[in-house]
């Protein structure tokens, strides 16, 4: 077999330059700048600065509020990831069985995907409105005085509901295509071996969905950590006060609202490390445990 190659050594490099320079300018340079800023306390206008070493990091470690935000972020990520995946899987399994009107059902289940996170947040604000929100009124009928933005738990509840609702369609699409790629012969064989539908699901379908599931797990963790920013921003109206927020939102609040460049940079470096760890974990798992074929 003849190896395809370039005549000149420089041509491939030349072709890579645009892509590499974009990565360099928009990813590495800002990341390096954030690392540098995290060692300083700097006047926002750029007139004065003091090198403070690791102080920005140590004050994060000492901060009760940062710990609280971290705890919330963990709980929020677990809840959003679990419910987004579980609901989507349930819907996908059910939708897979529907024969009549299957396309309409699937389209209806998918189109929330097109809603942008801030718009989803606004819909949450309307549904959970303190004065006339339909869901607030519904909860009121059951004796739950729902108080969005005044009560920590109620706001957290609304954040999880809106974020899950927004994410279910993506997972649904992937699960459904995952289900449909399971060979018919396998399913038929399973039908002979096991008459219980739930038994067949857990023994055969679920393991075969594992690659999709694992991929979605990573996607959903990333979503809950980072992409829910718009939902949170609109639900707390840019001012969290006693309401919960995630780590990413705190970077924004301290950096962009509070103009604390050093502290906010240290927080973003912490998040960079988190993403790095998540990526390493993903590659390790993909290579070792999960079999795609």
């Amino acid at each position: 077999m003849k190896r395809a190659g370039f005549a000149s050594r420089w041509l491939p490099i030349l072709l890579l330059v645009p892509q590499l320079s974009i990565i360099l300018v928009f990813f590495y340079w800002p990341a390096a700048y954030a690392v540098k800023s995290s060692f300083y306390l700097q006047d926002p206008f750029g007139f004065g600065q003091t090198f403070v070493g690791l102080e920005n990091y140590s004050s994060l470690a000492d901060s009760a509020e940062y710990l609280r935000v971290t705890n919330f972020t963990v709980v929020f990520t677990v809840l959003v990831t679990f419910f987004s995946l579980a609901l989507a899987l349930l819907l996908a399994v059910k939708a897979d069985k529907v024969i009549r009107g299957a396309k309409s059902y699937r389209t209806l289940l998918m189109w929330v995907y097109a809603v942008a996170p801030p718009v989803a947040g606004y819909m949450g604000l309307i549904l959970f409105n303190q004065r006339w929100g339909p869901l607030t009124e519904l909860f009121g009928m059951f004796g739950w005085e729902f108080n969005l933005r005044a009560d920590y738990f109620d706001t957290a509840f609304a954040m999880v509901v809106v974020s899950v609702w927004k994410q279910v369609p993506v997972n649904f699409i992937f699960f459904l295509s995952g289900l449909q790629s399971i060979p018919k012969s396998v399913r038929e064989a399973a039908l002979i071996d096991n008459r219980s539908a739930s038994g067949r699901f857990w023994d055969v379908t679920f393991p075969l969905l594992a690659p999709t599931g694992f991929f979605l797990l990573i996607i959903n963790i990333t979503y809950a950590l980072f992409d829910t920013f718009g939902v949170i921003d609109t639900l707390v109206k840019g001012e969290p006060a006693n309401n919960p927020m995630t780590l990413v939102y705190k970077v924004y609040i301290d950096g962009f609202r509070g103009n604390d460049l050093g502290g906010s940079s240290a927080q973003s470096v912490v998040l960079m490390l988190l993403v790095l760890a998540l990526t390493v974990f993903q590659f390790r798992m993909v290579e070792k445990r999960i079999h795609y074929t």
Partner: protein
Amino acid sequence: MNTMKITAAAAAFALAGTAAFAETEITWWHAMGGNLGETVNKIAEGFNASQDEYKITPVFKGSYEETLTSGIAAFRAGEQPNIMQVFDAGSATVIGAQGATVPVQDLLSENGVDFDINDYIPGVRYFYADNQGKMIGMPFNSSSPVMYYNADALAAAGVEVPTTYEEFEEIAPKLKEAGYIPLVQTHLPWEFVENFHSRHNLPFATNANGYDGAEGTQILVNSDEMKMHFTKVKEWLDEGYFGFFGTGWDDNQAQFEDGKAAMYIGSSGDFGGLTTKGMSFEWGSAYLPYWASITDEGYQTFIGGAALFAMSGKSAEENKATAEFFRYLTSPEVQYMWHRETGYVPVTTAAYELAKADGHYDRFPAAETGPKQLMLQAGENTRGYRMGFYVQIRDVENRELGRVLSGETTVEDALATIEKEGNELLARFAKTQG
């Protein structure tokens, strides 16, 4: 024929070009949305029409915080506007960055515009001044916390407007019985912390409320007076004498507009908006209440809202244009128009007198509360505060006080936390100035 047309067009174009070139153009970044933004545009149009040497272009940049952040980013890129609107909590940031702005007092005197700080209303004068009393930022949309009341609700309960919190405690049960939430507020830090200190002439921070410099400034909120106030507020909330609907200003104000809350503490600048809401009840405004147990007579409050800062790094001509714009902006007629349309206080005594002479306060007595409150007796702690990273300190205040009201923490713990985290932020800010 065609060539002639083109030549004529080119000549006309060139002429128009030179005409435009003679005008010095300046930009003004502001955070005034909605109706306020339209009034800002009206001021700019008025200035542009009043002369033909200068042209100002106002640009809406979003919320106060967004405007400050985009202004900072623009400054670092050398693309700053001539005038930037910065809000009260951000003033230490912009004033601390010496060299970012041209003090408005210097700008005016260098460009031959008469300036006397005593022309300004007492509560307005020194908030945006340095420790020498030199005005750095031009107070623009200035407001102070006042209390609005639903006159029908008070009549239904058979009570009078309270001037002190003690009086409020007496009438609150009657208002509750009449089916109202007696009181709501709209901004815990501004109304119950910052101006609480001014209204009672209590020190809010060391170093003369922070005006003497960022180094070593400490916030003083963990006091007996603050503990007493918030213990009471929490009691009122539990008794149903007080309503709390989160940090959102509008969420709380809406309770008053809906006729559910009998009284609300808001901004004198709410006046303009309230007149357009078509509320079905009679309403008016009164001074921000005070505790008679702390002071026999209430002191003046200071201004909230925002000021206009002249950014540095601009040509002499543009600075001249900025100075001329400030001359126009502070003229009694423009101030009166701004006051009438928006409810923000006029910043000069002359403008206040003009509004009075014109009968504005006979027509709208509620509009006079703000300016009058800013002219009450002054004390050593009433000019304002200057604290760095105050946006974040406010976030801490909102968080901890909100947690008090939702029962997640105690008043003692919350105030101790605000003081601890506030002082950490102040110490950090002092280092950014190094």
